[in-house]
């Protein structure tokens, strides 16, 4: 199903000591439309009593301006690596069954999802917290950019959460 497979051209060749579990963690950055159903099915497990999903949707307004559409750009190999890191961090903090984090690139029309996170867990608490952590950490670390196009003008957005481990210029 589109969007399920990890990007084959973005192989993470770093240490295998990461807790990212390729059998149960699914990350992708794709220009294809995202499917909540696909994310749900990816993390579905009969061992899980809860499936938590988060969808980031393109809004039709910002700062009193009408948003026509959003355009997303990604540093794909590094974005995939950072999404895998997020899965590792989730697994180090919470007991979860499966994780799926999918982000879309290219043009995303108003009302469409640009990011979907799904987490299955035995009990709901860890799933809810892991999904919350996932989107917060994505906004803080994953090299993806969003440009909002208005009826007149456009604007590259900036996440206030952005906190790279090291800043340049010092």
């Amino acid at each position, binding site marked *: 199903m589109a969007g399920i497979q990890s990007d084959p051209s973005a192989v993470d060749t770093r240490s295998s000591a990461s807790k990212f579990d390729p059998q149960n963690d699914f990350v992708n950055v794709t220009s294809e439309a995202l499917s909540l159903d696909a994310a749900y099915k990816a993390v579905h497990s009969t061992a899980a009593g809860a499936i938590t999903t988060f969808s*980031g949707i393109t809004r039709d307004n910002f700062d009193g301006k009408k948003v026509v559409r959003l355009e*997303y*750009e*990604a*540093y794909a*190999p*590094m*974005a995939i*690596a950072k999404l895998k890191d997020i899965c590792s961090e989730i697994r180090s903090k919470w007991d979860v069954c499966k994780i799926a984090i999918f*982000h879309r690139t290219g043009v995303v029309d108003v009302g469409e999802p*640009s*990011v979907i996170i799904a987490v299955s867990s035995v009990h709901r608490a860890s799933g809810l917290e892991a999904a919350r952590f996932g*989107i917060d950490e*994505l*906004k803080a*670390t*994953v*090299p*993806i*950019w*969003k*440009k909002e196009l208005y009826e007149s003008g456009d604007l*590259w*957005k*900036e*996440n206030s959460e*952005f906190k*790279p*481990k*090291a*800043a*340049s*210029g*010092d």
Partner: protein
Amino acid sequence: MPADVLSELEAEKAARRQREAQRSAQVAAVIKAEVQSLGSKREVYRSLGSVRLPHARTNRTLRRRAHMRVKVLYFARAREATGSTEESAEIENGTTAKALLETLVRRFPKLQEIRSCLVLAINQEYADGSAVLKEGDEVALIPPISGG
């Protein structure tokens, strides 16, 4: 710390240049003496056979090691500022990420507008500006991110 490392590198370079210059002068003096005794440089080289003069070899070695290539990637506002998504850059050994960025800002003045909010990544990891680049490194100019 970075300033110390840089001045140490510079001192090493200067010492190495001085040693090579001394060596070259010694070899030149030997050749001059031989030329005077044998009558021509050709005779001198013939008598040396296939031995390569050490200063010449060292100069070629220095030239080979003086520069290296890195890949530079531009995203979002950096891409718009440079009109490019990626390029191959030739830089001197010992160049830091910050020094490379300064060079790029001089080449693409529009980068100056976003210079203060740019973050660098080297080989897909966020990096400090003082990081010394290596041959084949992939350097990305990363404006403030806005995923999600």
